[in-house]
């Protein structure tokens, strides 16, 4: 241990060249953030400005007036969206959460990889394909466009999001907790119900909300399955209106009153998605704190 090792000379100051490099990269990073934010802010600004002008009691209380008259609303679209998304939630939540549980807790074999791969593919297929598929499967079979068909089409979009997100949050639950349950003599399903799910709790809720936020704004699948309706429809087997659909139709119309309504609808969609996303985000932050 007597061999002397020459001491390494540690410079006391940072060279001006490195300082300049650091500066350049910092500026480049900040600039890209700003550039990415510009379109987002412009979209939000425009939707809020034009949308606020259209928001009134009548937007929610009335259906459409003839094209040349000011006022009127899109009550039927809000109710329709509520029905369609409601149907999608009823089908996709149990399906998605159970799939997530399967993938996380039992998913090691070949079937699991097939399910996981399928969900992955579904996540990335264009939503109009989902719409066309359900059109062929449900609309043609039942002989009518309907809210039910739209709900099923949204399920195709929402199920894989929920399944994968649920799998991810359940995987975050430490193995030690599962073992603690098993060592007490809990059967596997009971470990899942009493330990894994409660521990992941808010995380699963987050998964559900993100999927709902996505389904809420989908237009193409709804277009091909619900068709749209100028009047309030509460029968899930009949053509139904939806907010994205109404926005799509009105925003390209020739009448200022309809275009104004379209912005009102767009604002409401934006708000809905925002509320769901922010709540989901807050829940997941709280969850991460608890897991620590």
């Amino acid at each position, binding site marked *: 241990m007597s061999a002397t090792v020459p001491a390494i000379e540690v410079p006391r100051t940072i060279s001006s060249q490195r300082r300049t490099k650091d500066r350049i990269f910092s500026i480049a990073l900040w600039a890209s953030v700003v550039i990415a934010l510009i379109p987002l802010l412009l979209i939000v600004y425009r939707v809020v400005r034009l949308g606020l002008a259209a928001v009134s009691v009548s937007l929610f209380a009335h259906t459409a007036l003839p094209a040349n008259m000011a006022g009127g609303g899109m009550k039927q679209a809000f109710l329709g969206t509520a029905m369609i998304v409601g149907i999608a939630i009823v089908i996709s939540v149990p399906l998605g959460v159970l799939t997530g549980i399967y993938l996380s807790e039992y998913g090691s074999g070949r079937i699991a990889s097939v399910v996981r791969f399928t969900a992955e593919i579904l996540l990335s297929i264009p939503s109009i394909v989902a719409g066309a598929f359900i059109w062929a499967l449900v609309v043609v079979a039942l002989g009518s466009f309907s809210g039910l068909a739209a709900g099923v089409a949204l399920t195709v979009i929402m199920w894989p999001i929920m399944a994968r997100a649920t799998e991810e949050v359940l995987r975050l639950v430490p193995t*030690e907790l599962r073992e*603690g349950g098993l060592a007490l*003599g809990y059967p596997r399903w009971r470990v899942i119900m009493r330990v894994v799910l409660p521990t992941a709790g808010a995380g699963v809720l987050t998964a559900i909300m993100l999927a709902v936020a996505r389904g809420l704004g989908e237009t193409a699948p709804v277009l091909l399955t619900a068709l749209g309706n100028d009047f309030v429809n509460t029968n899930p087997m009949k053509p139904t209106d939806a907010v994205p659909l109404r926005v799509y139709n009105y925003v390209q119309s020739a009448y200022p009153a309809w275009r104004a309504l379209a912005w009102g609808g767009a604002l409401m969609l934006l708000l809905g998605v925002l509320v769901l996303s922010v709540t989901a985000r807050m829940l997941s932050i709280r969850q991460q704190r608890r897991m620590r």
Partner: protein
Amino acid sequence: MREIDVSSLSAWFGSKQVLHDINLGIERSAATAIIGPSGCGKSTLIRCLNRMHEEVRGARVEGKVLFDGEDIYDPRVDPVVIRRRIGMVFQKPNPFPTMSILENTVAGLKLLGRLPKAELQARGEKALRAAGLWDEVKDRLGDPGGRLSGGQQQRLCIARALAVEPDVLLMDEPASALDPSSTLRIEELVTELKDRYTVVIVTHNMQQAARVADWTLFMLYGEVVEFGPTSRIFTTPEDKRTEDYVTGRFG
């Protein structure tokens, strides 16, 4: 009298064999320590005693573990039933984070069906007293279990395991994540518990084995090197490797 008899036990993770032909008898109402260097298979061995080993993907066991004269690896035996009679405490305290202190303690009792609240309370208190935690938590039974200190959490886990009144308590390095004074509490607890329960404790701390165990098993490379009364293993071991290990020459 023997409570558990292990014969020709081998275990694998995938294709890697981690236990080779283990034979071992564990005495009733005594503490048996399993010692050996890291990776020698001591945790795997203890996890084979309540069928927890097979919960790991790709894990496999061969051989017999007789408990009360019955082979726990008999295909007709439900591992869930075995685990209720052979409790386990893990290396890292693992109270259920969504449950309160009392709920954690009686978590295993919920399996016995719906018990009246007063009975749950009484059994919870008994278990917490047995784990030496009652006085510290009696005024805050409703607090989350995760709010306790590491040492308290581990005693909560011991209480949770005791509440179902098992015959055997397996402890897999129960103090390795704890500070010295918490470790001392756990060791005192083990010496108390071994009068009423059969305790098997895995430890990498030889002094701990010497302090708490009546019997000691020394393992190396997944094999039993020597098994005998603790005093003999530590003073007059028969095998040279045991002597080298307990005198601190390796490991």
